[in-house]
């Protein structure tokens, strides 16, 4: 692991030790966040898979009913019948925070009442098809809400994992190594100092001995 380029003195040593403590605390926090995110995420996945399968099956059966209606009344007549209706504000959106990830919440308002087509010329199966679509609509919205939450959580999990790994495998080892390096240099200087003092003491003692003679 790469050492940092710092001066090997006590000042830097203290600073690095403090940084190391902060990094360790941050790492622990992020790791907890990561674990919690993962828990949320996994809990949502299997639930989502079931919901999606249901919604897809029901949509397909509704499509089937529309196909029957088309076969009975003719494509043009059905297309024309379905032209009625205006896009309306069907949705109340708000946000919720899951582990500080902002996930959307969709609340559905009353769907428009299908109509505006002739009951006498169009097959009854068209009504049924529309009713089936209307019935599956709330669950489609739930699916949309859940899938979006899953995607947002996935992005956050990826980000958090990167941070955790960067701290664990890059920053913390590099701080630890730098601390060790500074400590060694300081010890070395300390030893150098000690031998110098001993040497000086010897010289002074020799000089004093020479002066007494």
């Amino acid at each position, binding site marked *: 692991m790469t050492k940092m380029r710092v001066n090997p003195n006590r000042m830097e040593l203290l600073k690095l030790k403090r940084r190391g403590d902060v990094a360790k605390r941050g790492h622990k926090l992020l790791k907890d966040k990561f674990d919690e995110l*993962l828990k949320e*995420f*996994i809990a949502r*996945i*299997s639930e*989502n*898979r079931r919901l*999606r399968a249901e*919604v*897809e099956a029901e*949509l*397909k059966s*509704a*499509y089937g009913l*529309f*196909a029957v209606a088309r076969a009975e009344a003719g494509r043009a007549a*059905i*297309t024309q019948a*379905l*032209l*009625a*209706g*205006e*896009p*309306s*504000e*069907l*949705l*109340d*959106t708000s*946000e919720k925070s899951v582990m500080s990830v*902002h*996930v*959307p919440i*969709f609340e559905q308002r009353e*769907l*428009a009442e*299908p*109509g*505006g087509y002739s009951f006498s010329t169009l097959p009854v199966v068209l009504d049924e*098809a*529309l009713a089936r*679509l*209307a019935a599956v*609509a709330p669950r*489609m*919205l739930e*699916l*949309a*809400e859940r*899938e*979006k939450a*899953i*995607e*947002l*959580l*996935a*992005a956050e*999990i*990826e980000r958090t994992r990167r941070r955790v790994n960067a701290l664990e495998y890059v920053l913390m080892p590099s701080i630890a190594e730098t601390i060790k390096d500074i400590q060694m240099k300081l010890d070395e200087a300390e030893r150098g100092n000690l031998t110098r003092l001993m040497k000086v003491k010897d010289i002074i003692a020799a000089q004093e001995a020479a002066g007494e003679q």
Partner: protein
Amino acid sequence: MAKIAVVGDSTSVAGFRPLGFAVFPVEHAEQARALWARLSAGEYGVVFMTEPVYEAMEDLIAEAMDQPVPAVTVIPGAGSAGGVGEAKINRAIERALGTSVLIREEED
């Protein structure tokens, strides 16, 4: 307050119109891609799209993936093979966990 958009071939999506959804029938890929700017502007909270449409504009949608709205959700189209919506979620799982094998094993 937001609207719900449905994008797809007209056979699949026509039925949503009487219910108050904003329906965008598209016939080919360029048409769908041209719609995206409008769909992602914030007017629509949820965008449902059929599988071929999603596949045609996947790269555009991926850019907006980290925003809360619009929530793009894949629905099956009439007569499409299926599995695209599932794949989309599996990609998210892979992104989060680095693998999607784990979850499948749990289900078995």
